[in-house]
């Protein structure tokens, strides 16, 4: 997210903060906190910003809560004119440690002493989930392509530039054999697929194969069933977790939660 341009602190609005934090993810669910409804409120007083967030249960993993809080603070701080950002976690077993640690700019291991190499471990975990987010979107794309009748050899031959995403339409378009195929309701999956691929440092330039595994190895003819079983089990796990977390959040706080992706 690009920092919102503001010539003076008086122009900082709740909206500009929401825009700045729009792509802060729940790492496990690979879904923005804003979409999940986990942002309780954003308050702006002059050049001071306060962001309050809450999670589906009292016991949600503190390490992930910490990542989310630190990301929120970093993004909101990047908005031009913002001087102080305070992030508050509510209704959580580690709310005090997370809130005070993050606002003092501490790392996770400083806020939760006694856990050695935890910070590197956390970054590693973040990558694990980016990888899963990548595979999950690949599953959606592959299945749509198969539904449209693309065969394995055709799919394996696709290059990065053969797919384009139309975000407003939420569709992805794939060109194969001189024909354009429309992957309906896969626009969001298509753009996240590309984003995760870049974030993971996987090949993503024009000319690179469109379908690669999470290590960057291109799909070879004959391997599609394995690709699909792996991607499906990853997607299944994430949608199940997301469904559980949304349901628990709704049970805890009421109101309606965002509908589930897919099926």
């Amino acid at each position, binding site marked *: 997210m690009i920092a919102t341009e503001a010539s003076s602190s008086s122009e900082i609005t709740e909206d500009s903060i929401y825009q700045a934090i729009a792509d802060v993810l729940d790492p496990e669910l690979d879904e923005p906190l804003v979409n999940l409804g986990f942002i309780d409120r954003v308050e702006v007083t002059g050049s001071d910003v306060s962001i309050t967030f809450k999670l589906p249960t009292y016991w949600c*993993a*503190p390490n992930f809560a910490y990542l989310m809080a630190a990301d929120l603070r970093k993004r909101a701080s990047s908005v031009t004119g913002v001087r102080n950002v305070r992030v508050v976690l509510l209704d959580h077993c580690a709310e005090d440690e997370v809130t005070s640690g993050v606002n003092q700019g501490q790392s996770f291991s400083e806020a939760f002493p006694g856990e050695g190499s935890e910070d590197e471990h956390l970054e590693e975990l973040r990558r694990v989930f980016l990888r899963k987010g990548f595979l999950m979107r690949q599953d959606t794309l592959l299945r749509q392509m198969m539904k449209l009748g693309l065969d394995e050899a055709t799919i394996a031959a696709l290059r990065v530039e053969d797919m384009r995403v139309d975000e407003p339409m939420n569709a992805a378009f794939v060109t194969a054999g001189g024909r354009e195929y429309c992957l309906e309701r896969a626009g969001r999956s298509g753009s996240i697929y590309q984003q995760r691929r870049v974030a993971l440092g996987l090949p993503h330039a024009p000319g690179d194969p469109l379908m690669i595994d999470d290590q960057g190895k291109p799909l070879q003819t004959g391997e599609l069933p394995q690709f699909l079983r792996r991607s499906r089990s990853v997607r299944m796990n994430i949608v199940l977790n997301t469904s559980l977390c949304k349901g628990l959040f709704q049970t805890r706080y009421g109101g309606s939660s965002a509908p589930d992706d897919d099926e």
Partner: protein
Amino acid sequence: MYRTDNGDGVFVIDAHSHLWDASPENQANKYGRGWIDCFYAYHKNLSPPEYVWTLEHYEKYSPDDMVHDQFVKGYVDLAVLQPTYLTDFYKNGFNTIEQNSVMKKAYPDRYILNGAFDPREGEAGLDYLRRQKGEWDIKGVKLYTAEWRGGSKGYKLSDPESYRFLAECVKLGITNIHVHKGPTIYPLNRDAFDVADVDDAASEFTDLNFIVEHCGLPRLEDFCWIATQESNVYAGLAVVLPFIHPRPRYFAEVMANLLFWIGPDKILFGSDYAIWEPKWLIEKFMAFQIPEDLQAEFNVKMDLETRRKILGLNAARLYNIDVDAAGARIKDDSLSKQAVALHSTPGRSTGSHG
């Protein structure tokens, strides 16, 4: 015993159940409150509305409630009691082997009593394990690798201390190691949901069975992978099965995956009572079919034989239970009589169509 519309009997072992006390009098601090509130959210979120209890009842139910919900109303023949200590949160513990033993004493033919260990307790912990074997002849233990204990934020099953305890289990003939790998159980600051440590321990201790409770959710796909590689790793369906109600399609995907990767012989039914009641879980499971597209993709099916294995026969094998003999012992007990009376009155719901 569940009976299908054709009259086929299905012997049911509920491999995961608890008698807990989370009443305000027993709560030691805010964590005790937070714990049961979280459990209640799971209960309320995934149960059909007519099976949602009041919070007060949920905090503390009686042994009579429990046997009624499991054996009279709920088709269950035998049940395994899995402890959950939480002595830092509850004055007398949340659900210790001592608490569970009340059920075992009152209904010895109906319950299998499991114990627990914590490798961080060293010699004293080993002594406690031996005492549990001596006093109750336990065949299994339930472990929480993500439990906070003093300064420690959890342990791994692959730690050297854990291996000492697992070796002791082999020696004592405690063969069923139920490992909690499931969602939101304890605060943790490393990835205690990671199932890789089960993989290591299972390769090292091939005489032990590792039942991964909640199928490793939220790491279900990693779990499927390790369970495929290790022949002594099993899937406990608690927490996963309730999705059959609000999210039948997700549940079908999970079952198709489990059957494909792990096979029908290594999946165990468990209600996690009192988080969920067995009655509706079993009725819905008996009526459940894997949609055709998933059957085709995974080449798996859900027939009566598979249902029987998951609902009882797999657990019977792990706990050396002869289901005919066990069935004969309970056939005429007071609970069976009540069950027959209940299910033969008008408006009964013994059939697979509820």
